[in-house]
Every structure is written in C-alpha cells, then in structure tokens.
C-alpha cells in the first residue's frame, strides 16, 4: 500500500470539500456532490490530456479558466464551477462539439446512455447557431469485425487512441489528418484486431464506436444490467451482463481495481453469444435418449454404485467452488474413491507451499512492485487482463520486469531481462535462480563455482540472444530482482511433467529468498482453468481434500486415463470437463472414454467427450450460475445468476447433490449458499465466509482472520532433488530434424471462440512456430503445410517463422478445434515434414544441408 496522502479542504461553489491532496479537481469535486463535466478525462487511461476543454473552471487567484481534469487540488483552494464565465465556457464547448456532430440520437445505439447527450442537456446552451454544412464521412464503417466506427459522431476525445497506444500498447489506432479533418483510424485502413480492442467501445463517450454484437439489439430503457464474474479464463474479470428479454446482449466491465482495472479482453466481452446458443444441451440423456432428470440420475447412480471406488471424477476449470466441492465429495464420501482431479493437475505438496497465505500477492500489488518476475507464462494468452496490469506497472517506470519463459511472450519488449529456456526446462532455470538468490554475497574469487555442482546446467545448448537459461541467465535475473518488493507471476504449467515438481519447489525457494512474504510482495500462480485455484482449495486434487487436508492418494489424470483403458477404473464423472480437448494425449482420452464402462458428463455443449458419454446431464453457463470462484490471487468472488437457465437445465450443484443422495450420501445441501456453507465448514482458511461477505468486490481469503488456519506446508526439500536429477531429456535438436516441442494454450484456442459467431474468425489454425534458422535448415518457409510427428502420431500445421524463437525449439497450440497439439503430448521432440513440397525443394525434414526459407 502506498502511503496515505494528507487530506485537505477546498471550497467548490461555496461548499467545503475534503479531498486527498494532489487529487484532480474533477475527482475531488465529487466528494462535495459537484459534477464537473468531462469527455476526454479517464483516469484508467493514464494522466489527463486536457483536450476536450469541457471541464474548465474558475480558480481564485488564476486569471485564466483552468481544466479541472488536470488541476491538482491544494488546501484552501477556492473553485467556482457555475459562474457566468464558467457557464459561458461550458456552453461554448458543447456548442463547438455539436458543430460537427450529426445529432442522430434517435437511431444511435448510444442514445440514452450517452455522456454527450447528458452533458449537452446539463451544461449546453440548448441550441446551436451553426448553420454551415457539417463534416461528412462514410459511415458506419468496420474498424474491425467487432467494432463499427461512425466518424461523424466522433468528438475527438482521444480515449480510444490513448487506449490503443498507452494501455494495450498495440499502437494500432491513430488520429489521422489534422484539425477539423482529423479522424480515428488505422494505418492503411487495416482492421483494428487486438485482444483488448473491444474496450474502446466502452470508452467512447459518444456513439462513434459501437459493438458489432450489440448494434440495434436493445435500448437503454429496456435492458437491465446484472453483475457477475466472467469465467472464461483465470482473470475472473468482474463484468456486467446487459440483459434484455432474459438474454444476455452485452458484456461490459464492472470496474474492480483489485481484479481487472476495468478492462476486458475480447473473449470475455464477446463470448456471451453462446449462452443463448441453440446448441446448448438442455435435457438429460441416457445413451442419447432424452429421458428426463429422474431417470437420468437413477441411471447414473446405478452405474456409479456398480463402479464404487473404481470411479474417477474430473472437474473442468470453469466449475465453481461449490461444484468442485460436491464432485469431490461424491467421489470421496459417496463412493469411497480417491481418484479426484481437476483439469489443472499439479502435485499437491509444492503447490501447497506456494499457496501459503503469506506468500500470496494480490493483483494490485503488481502496481507497486519494485520488480516483477514472470515465469513460464505469457499472461496475454493465459490471463489476458494481467498483461495490461503488468504493462501498466512497467509503463509507470518504477518496476523492473523480468521474463523467463520458453516461448517468447508479449511482455518481452518491456522486460529488463528476458531469459529463454528450452521447452520444459523451467526447473533448471528456477533451481539455478534459487542458488543465485540464496548464496552468500558474491565472492569474486570463485565465480561460477556452483555451476559445476549440478551437471548439465550452464552447459546445455542455450544460445544466448536475450539471456539463456542456466546460471548465467539466473545471474542476470537475480541482479534485476534483488532490491525491494518482488511479485512473481508464474504459470502453474511449470509444475507439469518431468521436473515439474522440482520447478515448483525451486520457485518456492526463490520466493523465500526474494522475501515474497513481505508487504507488497508475493506470488500469483496462473492456472489453466478459470477456477484452478478454487478447485484445488476445495479438494479437487489427488491426495488432498478440502483445505489441503490429507486424503488417500488417488490416480493422477494420466493414470485415470490408463485405468479406464485397462479396465481398472470403471466409471468417470466429468464435471464441465473435456479431456479429449484439454488434456495431454487427446486421442488416448477419446479411446479411454469409449472403453470406459460408464461416463457421466455434465456439460453445456456437446463435445468430443460428451460424444463418448453414456449419460449426459445439462449444465448451466456462467451467466446462469450461482456460486463462488477463487481468483488466482485468493480472492473469493461471487457468481450471480443473470439470466434464467434454458430448457430443462438444472444447477450443477443440484444435479450433484441429487446424485449424491441417490448414492446414499445425503449432503443436506439444498442451495448453492448451503454448498458454500459446507465449504466454509470444511476448508479451514475459508472458515465462516458467506456470500454476503464476498459481496460484489470479492474478498481475499489471505486477508481474513481464518487465513491463519491454513495448514503449514510440509518441508519437502528432501525429496525434490530426486525429481530434479537427470530427467533423461534428449539433446537439443540442432542436428538432424528433431526439435524440442513446447505447447501453449492460445488465448483464442477455446470453445468460446468457436461457439460465438462474433469472434469465430479469431479461432487459430494449428501452426508450428520455428526459429528462422531451423526453417532454413529444414527447408521450410512461412506458411508451408507440414506434418509434425512424434511417436507415431502426427498433427498437421502451417509453419510460422519467428525471430524470437530459440533455434531447436518448436511451439504449437494446445486446444485447437482440429489438429490439436495435445495429440503429441508427452512428446519431447518432434520431426517436421512438409506435406506438399515446394517445387525443387525436397520435402524431407532430415536434410542436413541448408535450404533458404520462404521459397
């Protein structure tokens, strides 16, 4: 927390107003219930620009009128906002703004919720003396497939341009031309396509920028706004659903500085169309037959009773805490099965250590951190709104950003140091970093001494462009991180696979060494699933029940899959989970689901996993749900139903309790709030939490008294070295055709992209990203169709050459609708072969002589 600024008193229009010293006058005036009209002022965009001149006020002692948006208040200041001079200026500005405005309010989407209308009525002269022809543009034109622009309505407040340049930093939007001929546009009229582009719709104070998905769908007087949470990614942005006729028509931010700073990504903004989709599952089915709830639940119970402890449960990342809790409870208490997992699977011991309340950072801590370490995650893809937050911290100049990742990230440009390790080798870098951070003050006599202690480190073939992994990279990182409060943002994926556990242990060691338990410092883990953290804390993981209570160890996800295929696991319950798409080795999962004796899927849509399910129960979508989520920083947030459930859909908590009752385990839970009560009773560090306490803003459990009840993590350092030891990794593929495979989840590689017509065009086709040197070596150019092979499986992709990819590595997208790279999962190296060889160039991937790329 930054130091409290002293309170001062000023007089505005004769009213004494208390304000924080240095606050801008327009903000301070609100404290006295005085409104100073503004157009261009928007603190979310950074400092004031003073362009619209709407906020001119008179200040005693200053001869000229001053802009209230840029004047910091001082003690004893005397301000007038309604003198003749000020009123004259306000009238003048409104008259000027309307000179070129078409005044087409009756057909404008903004009509009724338009600041220009409101300010014209409140502060304008009420008439115009302008009788010249107005400025004309072609209108409305598509600024992008998502946003239409009507340049005649634009009042040139610069908000959208400032968002693009100063917040998202994509710098695509520009003001073109000059003076009265100025207009907002892009270079060469290219579409403005960027992950956060939709925010300009909310920022626009007139009807110049309108949403393609909302145009002409509703009027402000026939809608209701309903606050909830977006569950499409771990950002868990606070949103408002605009509802008309019981359908969500629009999503916009419900500004919460502790979560999202008031921004949304386009997936969250336009992802609502699928809620009212005709493709929704609305009735329970057994073997494809619509049988109604009672028969379906009876059939499910019968099969589960038969499977008993040979049942497994997998919970999807979007499930609420209540759903996760009830699902694990069915497995553990109704069926006596220890096989519980969430799609975000990690081993509990090191995670538990990283979840310790004193090590947790709040999202807002990023704003004031002295240094930030981003490890193994590209927030733009995994938790988009966090990307804007990190940019903001760097932009303000006092924060040093360090990025350590296998794949280049969107944040690299702002980083002091970028350490690039090979796919899957986060553990080595983190262990080297831990050694750097924990070793005694530098002893110049023995440089690099510790590098020799662990074989492989420092000698691995990481060519230094930015900074390699290993000790030298770790040293550069350590040099940037040492002083002051450090926030670590890590992708929980670093904890997967061989060496994953070691990576998490090393991360915990780094966190301790960097004093992440101090004020303003700490860790934020980015899970894959929106509610990855909450599901773990309510017991959706193997070997730990609600609140990390020790539980019998069960199978991990791969073992569940193999068990299904081998007949050791009989039944599987999928709670809004699609393992075929979201887990490694999708084809094996598809086979496992087909071979399973019973699969019970609770799902919103039909997908590859429900296709193999015997019993399918319809699930609610997030806008229909009641429940709670836990943000990656520990903030409990409330989902509130905004629209009714379609058809025969029942709440998932209800389906689970009814199923439980049929299995002779009566939960006694008859509502979502009772499910929360049960969680609060079982998870010691959630103790006593209620929906009312969570409220609209959420509450971080680490900041509640009950946090002290979080059981301390066992020191697991003894076991870790074994995990870190030789992982049997193959040599980097600089010889031959083999490349190290890294996969990542693209922002748009999601069901939400495909099920929403507005953003369907963003769904990515599979591609394999290579360093240009490897492209040249393999005779592959940008856009070449290739087959990527490993262990007998193959995925088709197009080649994308990227300068910033390290030679020897290949990156592909997980979770695409087709040609999903998870088919290759488990593969450490891949071979790449061109499908249609370019004329004159042999398509063999194992060519040893170089071929120029991009033929």
């Amino acid at each position, binding site marked *: 927390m930054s130091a409290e600024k002293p309170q001062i008193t000023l007089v505005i229009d004769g009213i004494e107003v208390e304000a924080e010293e240095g606050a801008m006058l327009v903000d301070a005036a609100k404290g006295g219930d005085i409104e100073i009209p503004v157009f261009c002022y928007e603190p979310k965009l950074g400092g*004031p620009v003073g362009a619209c001149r709407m906020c001119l006020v008179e200040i005693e002692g200053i001869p000229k009128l001053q*802009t209230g948006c840029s004047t910091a208040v001082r003690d004893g200041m005397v301000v007038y906002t309604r003198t003749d001079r000020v009123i004259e200026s306000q009238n003048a500005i409104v008259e000027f703004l309307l000179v070129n405005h078409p005044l087409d309010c009756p057909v404008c989407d903004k009509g009724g919720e338009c600041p220009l209308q409101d300010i014209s009525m409140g502060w304008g002269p009420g008439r115009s003396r302008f009788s*010249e*022809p107005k400025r*004309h543009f072609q209108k409305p034109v598509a600024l992008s497939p998502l946003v239409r622009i009507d*340049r005649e309505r634009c009042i040139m407040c610069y908000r959208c341009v400032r968002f693009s340049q100063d917040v998202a930093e994509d710098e695509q939007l520009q003001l073109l031309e000059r003076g009265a*001929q*100025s*207009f907002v546009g892009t270079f060469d009229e290219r579409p403005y396509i960027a992950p956060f582009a939709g925010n300009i719709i909310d920022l626009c104070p007139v009807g110049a920028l309108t949403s393609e998905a909302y145009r002409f769908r509703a009027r402000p007087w026939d809608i209701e706004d309903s606050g909830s949470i977006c569950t499409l990614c771990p950002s868990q942005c606070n949103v408002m659903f605009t509802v008309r006729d019981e359908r969500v028509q629009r999503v916009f931010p419900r500004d919460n500085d502790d979560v999202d700073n008031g921004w949304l990504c386009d997936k969250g903004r336009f992802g609502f169309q699928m809620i009212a989709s005709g493709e929704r599952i609305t009735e329970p089915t057994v073997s494809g037959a619509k049988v109604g709830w009672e028969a379906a639940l009876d059939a499910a119970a019968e099969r589960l009773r038969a499977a008993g402890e040979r049942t497994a449960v997998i919970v999807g990342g979007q499930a609420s805490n209540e759903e996760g809790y009830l699902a694990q409870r069915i497995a553990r208490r109704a069926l006596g099965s220890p096989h519980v997992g969430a799609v975000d699977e990690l081993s509990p011991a090191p995670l538990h250590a990283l979840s310790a309340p004193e090590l947790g950072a709040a999202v807002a801590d990023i704003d004031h951190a002295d240094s930030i370490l981003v490890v193994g995650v590209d927030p733009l893809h995994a938790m988009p709104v966090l990307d804007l937050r990190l940019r903001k911290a760097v932009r303000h100049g006092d924060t040093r950003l360090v990025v350590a990742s296998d794949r280049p990230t969107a944040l690299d440009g702002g980083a002091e140091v970028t350490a690039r390790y090979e796919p899957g080798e986060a553990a080595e870098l983190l262990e080297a970093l831990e050694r750097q951070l924990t070793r005694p003050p530098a002893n110049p006599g023995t440089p690099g001494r510790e590098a020799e202690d662990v074989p492989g480190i420092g000698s691995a073939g990481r060519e230094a462009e930015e900074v390699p992994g290993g000790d030298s990279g770790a040293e550069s990182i350590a040099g940037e991180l040492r002083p002051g409060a450090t926030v670590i943002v890590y992708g929980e994926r670093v904890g997967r696979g061989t060496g994953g556990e070691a990576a998490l242990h090393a991360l915990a060691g780094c966190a301790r060494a960097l004093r992440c338990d101090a004020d303003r410092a700490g860790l934020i883990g980015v899970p894959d699933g929106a509610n990855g953290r909450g599901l773990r804390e309510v017991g959706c993981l193997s070997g730990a029940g609600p609140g990390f209570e020790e539980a019998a160890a069960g199978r991990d996800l791969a073992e569940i899959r193999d068990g299904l295929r081998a007949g050791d696991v009989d039944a599987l319950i999928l709670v809004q989970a699609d393992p075929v798409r979201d887990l490694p080795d999708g084809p094996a999962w598809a086979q496992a689901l087909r071979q399973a004796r019973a699969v019970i899927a609770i799902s919103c849509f039909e997908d590859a996993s429900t296709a193999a399910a015997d019993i399918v129960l319809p699930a609610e979508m997030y806008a229909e749900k009641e429940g709670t989520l836990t943000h990656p920083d520990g903030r409990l947030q409330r989902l509130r139903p905004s629209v009714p459930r379609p058809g025969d859909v029942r709440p998932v908590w209800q389906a689970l309790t009814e199923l439980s009752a049929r299995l002779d385990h009566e939960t006694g839970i008859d509502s979502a709030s009772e499910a929360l009560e049960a969680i609060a009773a079982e998870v010691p560090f959630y103790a006593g939490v209620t929906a009312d306490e969570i409220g609209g803003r959420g509450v971080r459990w680490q900041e509640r008294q009950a946090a002290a009840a979080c059981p301390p993590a066992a020191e697991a350092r003894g076991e870790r070295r074994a995990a870190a030891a030789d992982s049997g990794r193959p040599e980097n593929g600089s010889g031959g055709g083999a490349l190290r495979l890294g996969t990542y989840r693209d922002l748009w590689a999601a069901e939400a992209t495909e099920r929403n017509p507005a953003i369907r065009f963003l769904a990515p086709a599979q591609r394999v990203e290579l360093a240009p040197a490897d492209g040249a070596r393999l005779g592959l150019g940008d856009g070449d169709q290739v087959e990527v092979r490993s262990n007998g499986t193959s995925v088709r992709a197009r080649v994308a050459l990227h300068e910033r990819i390290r030679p020897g590595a290949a990156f592909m997208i997980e979770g695409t609708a087709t040609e999903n790279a998870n088919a290759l999962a488990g593969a450490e190296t891949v071979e790449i072969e061109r499908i249609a060889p370019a004329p004159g160039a042999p398509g063999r991937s194992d060519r040893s002589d170089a071929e120029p790329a991009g033929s």
Partner: protein
Amino acid sequence: MTREGEARMGETRLLFRHIDEPGLASIETYRRLGGYRALPRAVHDLESQELLEALEASGLRGRGGAGFSMGKKGSFLPRGEMEKYVCCNADESEPGAFKDRELMQKNPHQLIEGCAIAALAVGAAYVFIFIRGEYWEVADVLDRAVAEAYEAGYLGADVLDTGNRVELVVHRGAGAYICGEETGLLDSLEGKRGNPRLKPPFPAIQGLYGGPTLINNVETLSNVPHIVRNGAEWYKRFGTEQSPGTKVVSVSGCVRRPGNYEVELGVPSREIIFDLAGGPAKGRRVKAWFPGGSSAPVLTEAELDLPYSFEAMAEAGSMLGSGSIIIADDTVSIPKLALRTARFYHHESCGKCTPCREGTNWTAKMLERVTRGEATPMDLDIIASVQEKIIGHCLCVLGDSMAMPVGSMVSKFRAEFEEEIRAAASSASRPGAAGGGRPGELDHSGFDSPLTAEVEAV
C-alpha cells in the same frame, strides 16, 4: 531583402551587425569579426549560475512570441545532474515572420554560440535546433556550421577542453505550424504526432523525453553571445526598460521595401514602417497592420505612432509577438484578409482541443459565406461571438491566434464587412457572376481527407 550592407538610418544593428559580410556563415569569418569570444568566457570564467544571472539581469525577453524573460525561464530548470536539454525553436511558421531565416542563413555561428552558452547555463548536454522542413537550404547551412563548430571544439564531448559536453543536432521538421508551439515541437522531436501538451508540467520541469528543457527562439539565443560578451548593463542600454535590446523586425505586405530591419525596441512603429520599409505605395494609406505576425490583433492607422515595444503593443490590445509587421493598405479587403487568416489557422489547427478545432473551422466557413454574400449582419455577431468563445479556452495559443486577429478585424472594420456582404450579394445575384466553389462548401484544397464523402449540404 534588397538592402544595402550598411545600416539604414534608424536601425541599430547587434545581431545584424555584419549580416551582409560575405562568408559570415563560415567559422573563419565569424571569428574574424569577433565571434566565439563569448563561449570561451562562458566556459572558462563563469559559473552556470552567473551565466543565468547575467541573462536574467539583461532583461532579454523571448523573441518567439510570448516575450517571457529568458533568464527567468532558464532558472526554472532544476539544478543538478540529470538529462537536460536545450531546444532552439527554428520552426519559424508565423505568416509574416522571416527574421530567423536570415539570422540562420547568414550568421549560423552566432546561433550556435548562443545555443552552446545556453546549454552551459542550464547544465544541458544536448541541444536540438528544430528547423522547419521548408528551410532545407538554411538547414544545410546550419549543418555545415555545426560541423565546423565541432571541428573547432566549440561543440562535442569536451567543449574547449573543459570537460563540458554540448552536443548539437539540427532536426528538420515536416512542415506544420503547430510544431512551432513549444510542446508540439517537443512531441514532434520525440517522433510523435506534433500536438501540444497540457501545461503544467512546463517544459522547464518536464520537457523533451521527460527531462527539463529550455526552449528558445533563434533570435533569443542569437542575443546570448552579445550579452555574455558585453554584459547585462551594456545590453540594457538598448531598448526600453521593459523591452531591452534590439529586435529584428520582418516587415511585409503593402510596403515599398519589405525586409528585415533591426531596431532598438521602443522606436516609433511609424519609423519602421515608413522610414525603413518605405511605407505603402504612393497615394496609398495604411488601413490596418499586424504588429506581431498574423496572430496579433490588427491595429489601425491611428496607432502608427505607438512605440514598438512589448509593453506598448500589449497596452494597445495587440502584441509584439515574433516582431513581424504586416501592412494592409487601403486596397486590401479586410473581410478577405480575415478569411485568409482564418483559413490558415483552420488548416494548421492540430485538432486536439475542441474550441480550436471546431472554432477555426466554423469561423472559416462563416467568413467564406460573408465573402460570397450569403451572410447577414447577424452572422457578423456570431463570428465575433465565436472568437470570444475560443479565446482563453484552448489547450495552446493556436486558437487564440486566429480568434484575436479575426475578432479585431470584425470589431474595428465592421462597416466594411457589412459593405462586403451587400456588394457580394448583389454581384452573386447577377447571372454569371464569379462565386467560386459550390455554396456552403469550404475550400479544403490540399487537406481533403480521402474518407470524406462528397455530400451536398442540405
């Protein structure tokens, strides 16, 4: 600029002392005629504080338009080690101003010496001369002179072996009036769209690349070597108490000898216009004159005897500005002059703030209507009112730069506007009369947007 080498009667030449000496632009000639004497003194004998004090004591006021004390402006820069900058504003774009051009083209080293001393005074290691792109020939001259100065050790990492660093870069603008506005200049220099910034923070605190920056006009900086060499007391012997020194005045318009004349501030304006520039052609009278470039409110014949000083011009409701006198004689139509003025500022408005963007546009459209005879006297009230609504409400002074002269023309020559409307209306109503352009359409030539649809006015 057909002027003999010697100073005319009434001229007092300081900056122009050797202006027509052949080869003055070379470092040898400049040195031979007494140049580069002030810089060694500044770098060897004086502390930066003393330099600033000398500049402040001299009373030197900025010659770019605002007339703010240069020494005071320099003293606003924070002391201490940090990246500080000096920017020389050579974006001389004000219609009627051409003094900086001659100063740079003929005596570039005087400016370079002034820039280097200013940098030493405020502790800046970098100087940028932002010169308008149209002055490409002048920029070439400057480039050559800068190279000579580096060669001679007056610029560089170790100025005259004293360990002081002064680097100088000549940057060519891309041709926009707004880039002569000091903060627009900074944005342009940083590679951004040249738009003015909100002040405060003033450039002295947070300017180029966020560092404290001293911005001064070419003529202001060209005065600096003389002050450092001869002392503040000597300098104050020229000019008036509130406007010390001399001023290079660009005289243009309806005069027989247009050109640059250097006079002591405070001489009667009539002497500059009639004795030096020759006054209007025989039989013509001065109808209106801009005392300080096209953005100064116009004065009339009755005000010709005003002393040419910052304070006298301000008192008369106008301004000395950049010191550029434009004369309109009795053949000039004031409404057309107003339209020409408004069109210039409408074209050059950057569009960032509302009153300037919309006000210049509205004014130009109304004045077009006036000259087409489609206006009524009531429209003149609206024109006057629009000017009042621009003045004092803008982000920078560009809007005021149109509103003040146009407003002054409408108020001082209202009868002529009314006559213009009557005359234009009667000629426009005759078949075949030259109207020029379709009704209701503003002449956008040269700055039409490709996206503007051709839509007829209703």
